[in-house]
Protein backbone atom coordinates (compact mmCIF):
# COMPACT_ATOMS: atom_id res chain seq x y z
CA UNK A 1 0.00 0.00 0.00
CA UNK A 2 1.18 3.52 -0.75
CA UNK A 3 0.13 7.03 0.20
CA UNK A 4 -1.54 9.46 -2.17
CA UNK A 5 -0.14 12.96 -2.61
CA UNK A 6 -3.05 14.28 -0.57
CA UNK A 7 -2.08 11.94 2.27
CA UNK A 8 1.56 13.03 2.16
CA UNK A 9 0.42 16.65 2.61
CA UNK A 10 -2.10 15.78 5.28
CA UNK A 11 0.17 13.64 7.45
CA UNK A 12 3.57 15.15 6.67
CA UNK A 13 3.97 16.95 10.00
CA UNK A 14 3.55 13.78 12.04
CA UNK A 15 5.74 11.67 9.74
CA UNK A 16 8.57 14.15 10.51
CA UNK A 17 8.57 13.17 14.20
CA UNK A 18 11.30 10.56 14.78
CA UNK A 19 9.33 8.72 17.49
CA UNK A 20 6.40 8.26 15.07
CA UNK A 21 8.35 6.20 12.59
CA UNK A 22 8.00 7.93 9.23
CA UNK A 23 6.27 6.50 6.14
CA UNK A 24 6.08 2.92 7.41
CA UNK A 25 4.11 4.01 10.44
CA UNK A 26 1.74 6.09 8.35
CA UNK A 27 1.08 3.08 6.14
CA UNK A 28 0.51 0.97 9.26
CA UNK A 29 -2.15 3.45 10.38
CA UNK A 30 -3.76 3.37 6.95
CA UNK A 31 -3.97 -0.42 7.17
CA UNK A 32 -5.41 -0.37 10.68
CA UNK A 33 -8.95 -1.12 11.75
CA UNK A 34 -9.96 0.02 15.21
CA UNK A 35 -13.19 -0.27 17.20
CA UNK A 36 -14.12 2.56 19.57
CA UNK A 37 -16.74 1.44 22.08
CA UNK A 38 -18.54 4.44 23.53
CA UNK A 39 -18.81 7.74 21.63
CA UNK A 40 -19.07 9.90 24.76
CA UNK A 41 -16.55 11.94 26.73
CA UNK A 42 -13.56 9.66 26.19
CA UNK A 43 -14.60 8.61 22.70
CA UNK A 44 -15.05 12.20 21.46
CA UNK A 45 -11.47 13.35 21.77
CA UNK A 46 -9.98 9.92 21.04
CA UNK A 47 -11.98 9.68 17.80
CA UNK A 48 -11.23 13.21 16.59
CA UNK A 49 -7.48 12.65 16.89
CA UNK A 50 -7.47 9.07 15.61
CA UNK A 51 -9.55 10.01 12.56
CA UNK A 52 -7.22 12.95 11.86
CA UNK A 53 -4.13 10.78 12.18
CA UNK A 54 -4.91 8.67 9.12
CA UNK A 55 -6.24 5.39 10.50
CA UNK A 56 -7.90 3.45 7.69
CA UNK A 57 -11.06 2.16 9.30
CA UNK A 58 -12.87 3.06 12.51
CA UNK A 59 -15.86 1.25 13.97
CA UNK A 60 -18.17 3.31 16.20
CA UNK A 61 -20.17 1.40 18.78
CA UNK A 62 -22.76 3.10 20.96
CA UNK A 63 -26.49 2.56 21.42
CA UNK A 64 -27.14 5.95 23.01
CA UNK A 65 -28.46 9.17 21.54
CA UNK A 66 -26.97 12.60 22.09
CA UNK A 67 -28.47 14.61 24.95
CA UNK A 68 -27.84 18.22 25.85
CA UNK A 69 -26.17 17.20 29.13
CA UNK A 70 -23.48 15.44 27.07
CA UNK A 71 -22.36 18.52 25.17
CA UNK A 72 -20.11 20.13 27.79
CA UNK A 73 -17.67 17.24 27.32
CA UNK A 74 -18.59 15.26 24.18
CA UNK A 75 -17.02 17.63 21.66
CA UNK A 76 -17.48 15.39 18.64
CA UNK A 77 -21.20 16.16 18.83
CA UNK A 78 -22.88 19.56 18.58
CA UNK A 79 -26.23 21.18 19.24
CA UNK A 80 -27.63 19.81 15.98
CA UNK A 81 -26.76 16.28 17.14
CA UNK A 82 -29.30 16.21 19.96
CA UNK A 83 -31.58 13.20 19.50
CA UNK A 84 -29.33 11.52 16.92
CA UNK A 85 -27.53 8.26 17.63
CA UNK A 86 -24.06 9.12 18.88
CA UNK A 87 -22.66 6.86 16.16
CA UNK A 88 -24.53 8.86 13.50
CA UNK A 89 -23.45 12.21 14.90
CA UNK A 90 -19.82 11.09 15.24
CA UNK A 91 -19.91 9.62 11.72
CA UNK A 92 -20.89 13.00 10.24
CA UNK A 93 -18.15 14.89 12.04
CA UNK A 94 -15.42 12.34 11.32
CA UNK A 95 -16.27 12.20 7.61
CA UNK A 96 -15.76 15.95 7.40
CA UNK A 97 -12.54 15.77 9.42
CA UNK A 98 -11.08 13.09 7.16
CA UNK A 99 -12.82 11.88 4.00
CA UNK A 100 -10.19 9.15 3.55
CA UNK A 101 -11.55 7.31 6.57
CA UNK A 102 -13.85 4.30 6.36
CA UNK A 103 -16.39 4.34 9.19
CA UNK A 104 -18.63 1.50 10.33
CA UNK A 105 -21.56 2.30 12.63
CA UNK A 106 -22.68 -0.19 15.29
CA UNK A 107 -25.69 1.55 16.84
CA UNK A 108 -26.40 -1.32 19.20
CA UNK A 109 -25.77 -2.31 22.76
CA UNK A 110 -22.71 -4.51 23.11
CA UNK A 111 -23.54 -7.83 24.74
CA UNK A 112 -22.00 -11.24 25.26
CA UNK A 113 -23.79 -12.65 22.20
CA UNK A 114 -22.68 -10.04 19.64
CA UNK A 115 -19.27 -8.94 20.94
CA UNK A 116 -17.06 -11.66 19.44
CA UNK A 117 -18.37 -11.30 15.91
CA UNK A 118 -17.93 -7.51 16.02
CA UNK A 119 -14.41 -7.56 17.50
CA UNK A 120 -13.24 -10.01 14.83
CA UNK A 121 -13.37 -7.22 12.24
CA UNK A 122 -10.84 -5.01 14.02
CA UNK A 123 -7.15 -4.90 15.05
CA UNK A 124 -7.38 -2.79 18.21
CA UNK A 125 -10.21 -2.07 20.64
CA UNK A 126 -10.71 1.17 22.64
CA UNK A 127 -12.86 0.86 25.75
CA UNK A 128 -14.43 4.30 26.24
CA UNK A 129 -17.38 2.98 28.27
CA UNK A 130 -18.34 3.89 31.78
CA UNK A 131 -19.39 0.75 33.63
CA UNK A 132 -17.74 -2.43 34.89
CA UNK A 133 -20.17 -4.82 33.21
CA UNK A 134 -19.10 -3.67 29.78
CA UNK A 135 -15.45 -3.38 30.84
CA UNK A 136 -15.34 -7.07 31.85
CA UNK A 137 -17.16 -8.11 28.68
CA UNK A 138 -14.84 -6.09 26.45
CA UNK A 139 -11.72 -7.47 28.13
CA UNK A 140 -13.00 -11.06 27.93
CA UNK A 141 -13.87 -10.66 24.27
CA UNK A 142 -10.42 -9.21 23.54
CA UNK A 143 -8.93 -12.35 25.11
CA UNK A 144 -10.79 -14.83 22.91
CA UNK A 145 -10.46 -12.72 19.74
CA UNK A 146 -6.83 -11.90 20.54
CA UNK A 147 -7.06 -8.11 20.24
CA UNK A 148 -5.07 -5.54 22.22
CA UNK A 149 -7.21 -3.20 24.28
CA UNK A 150 -6.74 0.41 25.36
CA UNK A 151 -9.02 0.85 28.36
CA UNK A 152 -9.69 4.10 30.22
CA UNK A 153 -12.06 5.81 32.61
CA UNK A 154 -12.61 9.27 33.99
CA UNK A 155 -14.73 10.76 36.76
CA UNK A 156 -14.80 14.31 38.12
CA UNK A 157 -11.25 15.62 37.62
CA UNK A 158 -9.30 12.35 37.36
CA UNK A 159 -8.68 9.57 34.90
CA UNK A 160 -6.94 6.24 34.41
CA UNK A 161 -5.61 4.41 31.37
CA UNK A 162 -4.26 0.90 30.94
CA UNK A 163 -3.26 -1.18 27.93
CA UNK A 164 -4.61 -4.73 28.26
CA UNK A 165 -4.13 -8.05 26.51
CA UNK A 166 -1.00 -6.75 24.76
CA UNK A 167 2.36 -8.53 24.40
CA UNK A 168 1.33 -11.13 27.02
CA UNK A 169 0.38 -8.42 29.55
CA UNK A 170 -2.59 -8.51 31.93
CA UNK A 171 -6.30 -8.51 31.15
CA UNK A 172 -8.89 -6.49 33.04
CA UNK A 173 -9.58 -9.50 35.28
CA UNK A 174 -5.87 -9.94 36.09
CA UNK A 175 -5.99 -6.43 37.58
CA UNK A 176 -9.54 -6.64 38.95
CA UNK A 177 -10.32 -10.28 39.79
CA UNK A 178 -13.37 -9.21 41.81
CA UNK A 179 -15.74 -6.54 40.51
CA UNK A 180 -16.35 -3.39 42.51
CA UNK A 181 -19.78 -3.51 44.13
CA UNK A 182 -22.26 -1.27 42.33
CA UNK A 183 -22.77 0.89 45.42
CA UNK A 184 -19.03 1.66 45.55
CA UNK A 185 -18.85 3.05 42.02
CA UNK A 186 -18.73 6.70 41.04
CA UNK A 187 -20.09 7.60 37.61
CA UNK A 188 -20.16 10.74 35.45
CA UNK A 189 -23.93 11.05 35.80
CA UNK A 190 -23.84 10.79 39.59
CA UNK A 191 -20.61 12.57 40.36
CA UNK A 192 -20.11 14.78 37.36
CA UNK A 193 -17.00 15.37 35.33
CA UNK A 194 -15.02 18.35 34.08
CA UNK A 195 -15.33 18.25 30.27
CA UNK A 196 -11.66 18.76 29.34
CA UNK A 197 -10.51 16.35 32.09
CA UNK A 198 -12.34 13.39 30.55
CA UNK A 199 -11.31 14.81 27.16
CA UNK A 200 -7.66 14.72 28.14
CA UNK A 201 -7.93 11.03 29.01
CA UNK A 202 -9.45 10.39 25.58
CA UNK A 203 -6.43 12.13 24.04
CA UNK A 204 -4.11 9.91 26.08
CA UNK A 205 -5.98 6.92 24.62
CA UNK A 206 -5.47 8.15 21.07
CA UNK A 207 -1.73 8.55 21.64
CA UNK A 208 -1.32 5.07 23.17
CA UNK A 209 -3.38 3.65 20.27
CA UNK A 210 -1.12 5.32 17.71
CA UNK A 211 1.91 3.88 19.54
CA UNK A 212 0.47 0.37 19.39
CA UNK A 213 -0.53 0.63 15.72
CA UNK A 214 2.90 2.00 14.72
CA UNK A 215 4.82 -0.61 16.75
CA UNK A 216 6.39 1.98 19.03
CA UNK A 217 6.24 -0.66 21.75
CA UNK A 218 8.24 -3.52 20.30
CA UNK A 219 10.31 -6.37 21.61
CA UNK A 220 13.47 -5.18 19.85
CA UNK A 221 14.10 -1.81 21.43
CA UNK A 222 11.11 -0.71 23.50
CA UNK A 223 9.16 -3.69 24.86
CA UNK A 224 5.78 -2.94 26.36
CA UNK A 225 5.59 -3.28 30.11
CA UNK A 226 2.32 -3.15 32.02
CA UNK A 227 1.68 0.34 33.38
CA UNK A 228 -1.32 2.34 34.46
CA UNK A 229 -1.42 6.05 33.71
CA UNK A 230 -3.11 8.06 36.47
CA UNK A 231 -4.21 11.57 35.54
CA UNK A 232 -5.21 14.20 38.11
CA UNK A 233 -6.62 17.45 36.75
CA UNK A 234 -7.09 19.51 39.91
CA UNK A 235 -3.94 19.12 42.03
CA UNK A 236 -4.47 22.12 44.31
CA UNK A 237 -1.74 24.57 43.31
CA UNK A 238 0.43 21.99 41.58
CA UNK A 239 -1.58 22.15 38.38
CA UNK A 240 -2.16 18.77 36.74
CA UNK A 241 -0.23 15.50 36.73
CA UNK A 242 0.13 12.19 34.94
CA UNK A 243 1.87 9.47 36.90
CA UNK A 244 2.90 6.10 35.55
CA UNK A 245 2.40 3.09 37.83
CA UNK A 246 4.18 -0.21 37.20
CA UNK A 247 1.51 -2.93 37.15
CA UNK A 248 1.32 -6.70 37.52
CA UNK A 249 1.61 -8.86 34.38
CA UNK A 250 -0.75 -11.59 33.25
CA UNK A 251 -1.79 -13.63 36.31
CA UNK A 252 -1.42 -17.39 36.09
CA UNK A 253 -4.57 -17.96 38.14
CA UNK A 254 -6.72 -15.57 36.09
CA UNK A 255 -9.78 -16.79 34.20
CA UNK A 256 -8.27 -15.31 31.03
CA UNK A 257 -5.99 -18.35 30.73
CA UNK A 258 -8.92 -20.63 29.97
CA UNK A 259 -11.57 -18.35 28.53
CA UNK A 260 -13.49 -19.58 25.49
CA UNK A 261 -16.17 -18.15 23.25
CA UNK A 262 -18.63 -20.52 24.85
CA UNK A 263 -17.86 -19.27 28.35
CA UNK A 264 -18.41 -15.65 27.26
CA UNK A 265 -21.73 -16.51 25.60
CA UNK A 266 -22.98 -18.26 28.70
CA UNK A 267 -21.79 -15.71 31.28
CA UNK A 268 -24.30 -13.43 32.95
CA UNK A 269 -22.17 -10.27 33.17
CA UNK A 270 -24.90 -8.28 34.86
CA UNK A 271 -25.14 -10.81 37.67
CA UNK A 272 -21.35 -11.08 37.95
CA UNK A 273 -21.02 -7.34 38.53
CA UNK A 274 -24.02 -6.93 40.80
CA UNK A 275 -27.59 -5.94 40.50
CA UNK A 276 -27.77 -2.18 39.96
CA UNK A 277 -28.96 -1.62 36.40
CA UNK A 278 -26.44 0.67 34.74
CA UNK A 279 -27.14 2.82 31.78
CA UNK A 280 -24.58 0.97 29.71
CA UNK A 281 -22.23 2.84 27.37
CA UNK A 282 -23.27 6.29 28.51
Amino acid at each position, binding site marked *: MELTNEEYSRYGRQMQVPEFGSLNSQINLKNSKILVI*GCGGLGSSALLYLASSGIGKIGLLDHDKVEISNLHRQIIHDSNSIGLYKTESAFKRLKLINPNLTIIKHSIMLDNLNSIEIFNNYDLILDCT*DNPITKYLISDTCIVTNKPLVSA*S*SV*KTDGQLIILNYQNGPCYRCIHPKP*TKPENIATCSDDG*VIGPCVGLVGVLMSIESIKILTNYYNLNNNPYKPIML*MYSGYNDNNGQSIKSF*KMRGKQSDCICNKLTKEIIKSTNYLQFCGSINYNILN
Partner: protein
Amino acid sequence: MVKVKVEFLGGLDQTFNGIKNLKLEIDGEEPKLIELINKLSNEYISNEKDFEMFIQEGTIRPGILVLINDTDWELEDKEDYILDDGDLISFTSTLHGG
Protein backbone atom coordinates in the same frame (compact mmCIF):
# COMPACT_ATOMS: atom_id res chain seq x y z
CA MET B 1 9.39 3.51 63.89
CA VAL B 2 9.05 4.12 60.18
CA LYS B 3 7.88 7.31 58.42
CA VAL B 4 5.85 6.86 55.25
CA LYS B 5 3.83 9.03 52.89
CA VAL B 6 0.29 8.07 51.91
CA GLU B 7 -1.77 9.40 49.01
CA PHE B 8 -5.41 8.81 48.09
CA LEU B 9 -6.23 9.04 44.39
CA GLY B 10 -9.22 8.58 42.12
CA GLY B 11 -11.62 10.20 44.58
CA LEU B 12 -10.69 7.95 47.51
CA ASP B 13 -9.80 11.09 49.49
CA GLN B 14 -13.54 11.50 50.08
CA THR B 15 -13.47 8.42 52.29
CA PHE B 16 -10.73 10.07 54.36
CA ASN B 17 -12.35 13.46 55.04
CA GLY B 18 -10.94 14.96 51.86
CA ILE B 19 -7.33 14.26 52.81
CA LYS B 20 -5.26 13.63 49.67
CA ASN B 21 -1.78 13.39 51.18
CA LEU B 22 -0.63 12.25 54.59
CA LYS B 23 2.63 11.64 56.41
CA LEU B 24 2.46 8.90 58.99
CA GLU B 25 4.65 7.19 61.55
CA ILE B 26 4.20 3.48 62.11
CA ASP B 27 5.54 1.97 65.33
CA GLY B 28 7.79 -1.05 65.45
CA GLU B 29 11.06 -2.20 63.95
CA GLU B 30 9.83 -3.67 60.67
CA PRO B 31 6.17 -2.76 60.38
CA LYS B 32 4.16 -4.35 57.58
CA LEU B 33 1.85 -2.61 55.16
CA ILE B 34 -1.13 -4.24 56.89
CA GLU B 35 -0.34 -2.19 59.99
CA LEU B 36 -0.54 1.00 57.97
CA ILE B 37 -3.86 -0.13 56.49
CA ASN B 38 -5.23 -0.87 59.95
CA LYS B 39 -4.08 2.49 61.25
CA LEU B 40 -5.71 4.27 58.31
CA SER B 41 -9.02 2.47 58.68
CA ASN B 42 -9.11 2.81 62.49
CA GLU B 43 -7.92 6.37 62.90
CA TYR B 44 -8.66 8.24 59.69
CA ILE B 45 -12.18 7.23 58.72
CA SER B 46 -14.66 9.23 60.72
CA ASN B 47 -17.85 8.04 59.05
CA GLU B 48 -18.80 4.44 59.81
CA LYS B 49 -20.37 3.90 56.37
CA ASP B 50 -17.13 5.06 54.71
CA PHE B 51 -15.34 2.07 56.24
CA GLU B 52 -16.91 -0.21 53.59
CA MET B 53 -15.40 2.04 50.89
CA PHE B 54 -11.92 1.01 52.07
CA ILE B 55 -12.13 -2.42 53.72
CA GLN B 56 -14.33 -5.35 52.72
CA GLU B 57 -14.09 -8.95 53.94
CA GLY B 58 -11.00 -8.12 55.97
CA THR B 59 -8.93 -6.67 53.17
CA ILE B 60 -8.75 -3.69 50.80
CA ARG B 61 -12.06 -3.63 48.92
CA PRO B 62 -12.29 -4.78 45.31
CA GLY B 63 -11.72 -1.82 42.98
CA ILE B 64 -8.96 -0.22 45.05
CA LEU B 65 -5.42 -0.59 43.74
CA VAL B 66 -2.52 -0.30 46.18
CA LEU B 67 0.84 0.98 44.97
CA ILE B 68 4.14 0.87 46.80
CA ASN B 69 6.45 3.56 45.45
CA ASP B 70 4.44 3.66 42.21
CA THR B 71 4.49 -0.14 41.85
CA ASP B 72 1.45 -2.43 42.07
CA TRP B 73 1.54 -4.22 45.44
CA GLU B 74 0.99 -7.52 43.62
CA LEU B 75 4.62 -7.18 42.51
CA GLU B 76 5.66 -6.75 46.14
CA ASP B 77 4.39 -8.68 49.15
CA LYS B 78 0.98 -7.04 49.37
CA GLU B 79 -0.13 -6.76 53.05
CA ASP B 80 3.15 -8.32 54.20
CA TYR B 81 5.40 -5.75 52.51
CA ILE B 82 7.80 -4.36 55.10
CA LEU B 83 7.59 -0.58 55.19
CA ASP B 84 10.74 1.47 54.78
CA ASP B 85 11.44 5.10 55.65
CA GLY B 86 10.26 7.41 52.89
CA ASP B 87 8.00 4.87 51.19
CA LEU B 88 5.06 6.32 49.25
CA ILE B 89 1.94 4.17 49.56
CA SER B 90 -0.81 5.12 47.09
CA PHE B 91 -4.41 3.95 47.23
CA THR B 92 -6.51 4.60 44.16
CA SER B 93 -10.12 3.85 43.37
CA THR B 94 -10.79 2.34 40.00
CA LEU B 95 -12.80 4.83 37.99
CA HIS B 96 -15.69 3.87 35.74
CA GLY B 97 -16.82 7.06 34.01
CA GLY B 98 -16.50 7.57 30.29
